[in-house]
């Protein structure tokens, strides 16, 4: 029963990892950009929610109404003001610029909020749980998982059913031809980053309710999201959800074997997938 429980908890945790990964997957799909600062932006969103909730006396989930638009706007500005200038054939400039950004965000948070761990206070939501079939499941992990499925479903719908999605896919296929067809590449990239950071904002708030966070925690979140993307296969959003679940289950089962083995087990499963299926389990796109 312990093991079944570990698998169930791990699956639900995978929903959070899928949310970390969705934003990463989105911008990689549209503009082949890997944002090293992604994890730090997740943590930044959690801090933004902390200040919003404290300042306006809101529940952290209600603070989403402020944090999501704010992060999306910041994403658009960041992309058009900074990252678009680095987009070319060479992978080095975007990588190093987002790396610099990561260090700036981390130390900015350290200055503003100190290194003390913080947590978003969500009242009864933190401890509420449901019991069935001898298993007890927290409402928050369940809600996180449901939101992850909803976000991925919405992104999937957006990609294949809307004009914006068509613009994203066209730019992804051939930037210059898309430009010739009247799409403004710089604007499309800005929108992709805005959407990515909107998802990131949701992920950050859910993370902050679930566990304590501190300014140095961005790297681990980037890595978990990245592992979910690679396990699932590049360019496949439902694959990313599956990748998140596999990673979450690996960590939960690893933690069940030995507490010090939790995170390590996730990394080892990732490396095993990389060794056996280097393109991920459900690939749709060439790296």
């Amino acid at each position: 029963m312990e093991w079944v429980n570990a698998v169930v908890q791990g699956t639900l945790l995978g929903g959070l990892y899928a949310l970390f990964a969705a934003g990463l997957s989105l911008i990689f799909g549209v503009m082949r950009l890997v944002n090293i600062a992604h994890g730090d932006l997740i943590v930044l969103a959690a801090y933004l929610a902390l200040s919003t909730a404290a300042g306006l006396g809101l529940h952290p989930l209600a603070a989403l109404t402020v944090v999501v638009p704010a992060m999306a706007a910041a994403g658009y500005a960041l992309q058009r003001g900074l990252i678009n200038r680095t987009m070319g054939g060479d992978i080095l400039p975007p990588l190093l610029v987002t790396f610099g950004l990561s260090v700036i965000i981390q130390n900015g948070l350290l200055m503003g909020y100190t290194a003390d761990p913080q947590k978003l206070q969500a009242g009864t939501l933190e401890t509420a749980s449901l019991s069935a079939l001898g298993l007890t499941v927290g409402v928050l992990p369940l809600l996180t998982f449901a939101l992850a499925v909803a976000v991925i479903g919405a992104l999937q719908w957006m990609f294949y059913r809307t004009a914006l999605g068509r613009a994203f896919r066209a730019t992804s296929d051939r930037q210059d031809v898309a430009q010739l067809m009247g799409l403004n590449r710089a604007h499309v990239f800005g929108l992709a980053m805005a959407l990515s950071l909107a998802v990131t904002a949701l992920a950050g708030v859910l993370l902050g309710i679930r566990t304590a966070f501190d300014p140095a925690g961005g790297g681990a979140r980037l890595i978990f999201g990245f592992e979910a993307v690679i396990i699932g296969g590049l360019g496949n959003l439902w694959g990313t959800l599956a990748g998140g679940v596999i990673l979450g289950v690996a960590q939960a089962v690893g933690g069940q074997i030995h507490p010090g083995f939790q995170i390590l087990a996730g990394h080892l499963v990732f490396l095993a997938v990389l060794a056996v299926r280097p393109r991920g389990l459900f690939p749709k796109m060439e790296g």
Partner: protein
Amino acid sequence: MDVTRASRLTRAAAVAGLVLLVALAAAPWWAGRADMRLLGEIFLYMALATLWNLLAGYAGLVSVGQQAYVGLGGYLLFALTMLAGLPVLAALPVVLIAGAVVAVPVAALIFRLRGAYFAIGTWVIAEVFRLTAAQLSALGGGSGASLPPAVVRTLAEGRDLREAMAYWLAFGLLVLVLAAAVAILRSRHGLALTAIRDNELAARSLGIDIWRTKLFVYVAVGGLTALAGALIFLQKLRISPDAAFAVNDWTAFVIFIVVIGGIGTLEGPIIGTLVFFALRETMADLGTIYLIALGAVAIVVMLRAPDGLWGLIRARTGAELFPLSRRVTGIPPRP
């Protein structure tokens, strides 16, 4: 007519370098204890920066996980001396070889990731190493271990001589790394690397085996970085997983040094290290603001002057201190 790599400037630089080499080797006789420690730290960072530059600037392997090898080297030194009872000087060559040996299977795995995803893959490897080190109860687990005085004494008797030894080792590593970099870049591998740096597709179409060339560089850099890690923690005398595998200390600073100095040149990391330490010695009290400023400067350099400080100097003067690129001399004047 003659094709040569040397120029008047490289010959002058070689003479100046030789003078500097002798002066720095003699530092224990003229420098104070604190100056020697600082110089040792500068040499080790210069070595790390030169090594990272070989990976990212020449082989196109942008790693944000070189702390894996720094930490591995540190932990190997502690394990070999404390658990296997080797004297420090005997442990160092073992660290060099072990670092290179470990790099082979790691490369086989992460070379499957392309471009930017390769970068994050290297970070995962470093995390795996860190979490594994935290499980090593013989070396203190998560809280780490100190090098026992008995082990330190195998380096040399007496504090002065010991500190001089640590200094010479750091200096020796830098000389070894620079010599290795020049040797690699002047060899067939170096020509292949420079071609890959300039245009990977064109390089491949000329018959260069890109995978093998990159593997060679990654493995050589892995071994030398592990050796640098061993020397870093020989200076610190204390190791812990978080310090040994710190992404900020061993990768972020190194990347900033290379970007600011000039990526893809041998002179860049040297200049970058000097700038980095000059800033650190004057601004270290500012703490986090210093790091923010460093990140901002790196971003501006990447956007405005992607070839860094040395790139600016070279564009003005055409100067090159190391004899690497070939030039034609002695073309007879037109009659």
